[in-house]
């Protein structure tokens, strides 16, 4: 169990806001989590719930109009949110690295792959070109790119999407970071390539005992990769549990809604997909009620009066709800086949 290990990164009560022409956007509203070395932590949620913003905030690379307004993120005895840009820069890529969603746009089209692989090595280890090139070659081979030596001189447009994501992974792992943040690493790829990339990530991360923070909207990816999963909605964690527990017995109505809206191979033929009604919360005001309440079938009066606290309702499981889903609800629905 990961709780026994000392956390590598410990985020507490993180708040992020953006100033826009329409007013303040409350993107992240108090999230807390720990990641231990070697652990794989999942953060799931729909678009715009603040998943990516969380990771960008940790690395200090938010867009100009974004501000961290509260919280701490302890990493190796230092609070990432209070470091100066220079200090953070020496952590980015060296100790915490990040992989982005779209490998088609995350590589610079005018630079060779070799040059882009050398960049973190030169920035953090001060390697000269020869050393960096040898290391770049090793890295390309590790991520499974054939005839790596020739490909170092190639440009991104000469690579396919899956190969580019492999290159991105190689760049992120170049300095052997302790924590790797993967922000929707497979979203832009087709399904067969997705499986390969996830497998590659899993292997590389376990070989190095790297902690992996996997951000995705794809429940399938989380199920296969993560030990613990956080379900995020409107900038808050709604439910936190081990992946097995979460998928067997979702307790938050939002988690249940997510599971119901995804087709499953083992479900009955007549089982209908149930979309979550309504649209995500407008984030222009701080939450004053349960942010999911307007879309929720389990809503109770109290949900409209205050934000429910994130409470441990069973060991290892936190749920932010006044009226959690009964533990056997999901199981019952799947067996019954009726919705």
């Amino acid at each position, binding site marked *: 169990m990961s709780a026994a290990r000392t956390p590598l990164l410990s985020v507490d009560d993180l708040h992020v806001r953006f100033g826009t022409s329409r007013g303040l956007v409350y993107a992240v509203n108090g999230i807390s989590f720990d990641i231990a070395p070697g652990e794989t932590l999942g953060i799931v949620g729909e678009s715009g719930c603040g998943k990516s913003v969380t990771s960008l905030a940790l690395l200090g690379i938010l867009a100009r109009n974004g501000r961290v307004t509260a919280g701490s993120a302890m990493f190796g005895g230092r609070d990432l949110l209070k470091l100066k840009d220079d200090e953070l820069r020496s952590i980015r890529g060296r100790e915490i690295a990040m992989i*982005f969603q779209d490998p088609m746009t995350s590589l610079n089209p*005018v630079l060779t792959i070799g040059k882009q692989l050398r960049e973190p090595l030169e920035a953090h280890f001060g390697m000269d070109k020869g050393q960096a090139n040898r290391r770049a070659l090793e890295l390309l081979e590790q991520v499974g790119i054939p005839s790596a030596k020739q490909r170092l001189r190639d440009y991104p447009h000469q690579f396919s999407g899956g190969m580019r994501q492999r290159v991105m992974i190689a760049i992120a792992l170049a300095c052997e970071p302790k924590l790797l943040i993967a922000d929707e690493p497979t979203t832009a790829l087709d399904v067969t390539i997705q499986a390969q990339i996830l497998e590659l990530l899993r292997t590389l991360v376990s070989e190095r005992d790297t902690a992996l923070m996997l951000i995705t909207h794809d429940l399938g990816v989380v199920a296969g990769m993560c030990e613990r999963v956080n379900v995020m909605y409107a900038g808050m964690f709604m439910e936190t549990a081990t992946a097995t527990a979460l998928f067997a017995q979702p307790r938050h109505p939002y988690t249940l809604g997510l599971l119901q809206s995804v087709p499953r191979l083992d479900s009955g033929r007549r089982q209908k997909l149930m979309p979550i009604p309504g649209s995500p919360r407008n984030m222009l005001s701080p939450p004053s009620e349960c942010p999911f309440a307007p879309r929720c079938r389990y809503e109770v009066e109290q949900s409209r009066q205050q934000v429910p606290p994130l409470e441990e309702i069973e060991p290892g499981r936190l749920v932010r709800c006044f009226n959690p889903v009964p533990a056997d609800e999901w199981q019952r629905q799947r067996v019954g086949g009726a919705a």
Partner: protein
Amino acid sequence: MSIAELESREIQLEQPQGLWSDAWYRLRRNRGALIGFGLVSTFVLVALFAPLIAPYGPREQNLSLVADGCCPGPSAEHLFGVDQLGRDEFSRVVYGARYSLLIGVVSVAVGLSFGLVLGAIAGFFGGITDSVIMRLMDIMLAIPGLLLAIGIVAMLGPGIWQIMIAVGVVNIPIFARLLRGAVLGQRENDFVLAARAIGVPKRTILGSHILPNAVSPVIVAGTLALATAIIDVAGLGFLGLGPQDPATPEWGTMLTGTIRYLQTAPHLAIIPGIAIVISVLGFNLIGDGLREALDPKLRGRA
């Protein structure tokens, strides 16, 4: 041949390597640009080898030639005739290419270097820095170019270096604006964020990620600005703000001296005029060709 082999061949055919070689490939297939290259290289060669090409010195006077009135037209000894002081017009035009080329290149270099630095800083750092720089540029743009140039020459005093600086300064806001816009566009790119995420220093991000992606419109504008600079300098020369020695074979200055003889010897005005037109046309054709070659929307089409 297997399908895989066919595919790999096709890929090789489709992709002539990187961005620049791709652009170069398309440039070579553009007839206008080739003509432009022809005109400009002639212009450059003439400028470089002027002493070998010109039969006379540019300041060599032979007043006996104009003893019977001004001015004898083209003849076997004097291809383009002689001017009011009996100087060989052909030699003067040939030497004039040196001045025009030098003036064009230096003034564009002045404009480009300051404009690029200011534009890159404004675009990359944004905020107050950006506002201050760009408002300054707006003020400069508010004054008509030639008028600003005349003002600067009036301040510095007439002379060939002064007009180069003046024309260069007029170009600064144009380049600064252009590069700022391009940098702003590139700054939000995913690969810039990705580079920041792996800890690449700011300066490297600007230098090796943003600028190479942002310079292509500036290259085009620079080529076109060479043409404009030649015209502007000729204009300033014509107004008498150019080289103070009237014997200098600068095309604009040559035009000034010949106004009085327009009716009797129009070739004295026409020939330097044609020289200006040809060199300007050459740079414009190259500029347009470059614009097409570097346009990302046209990339991939032959």
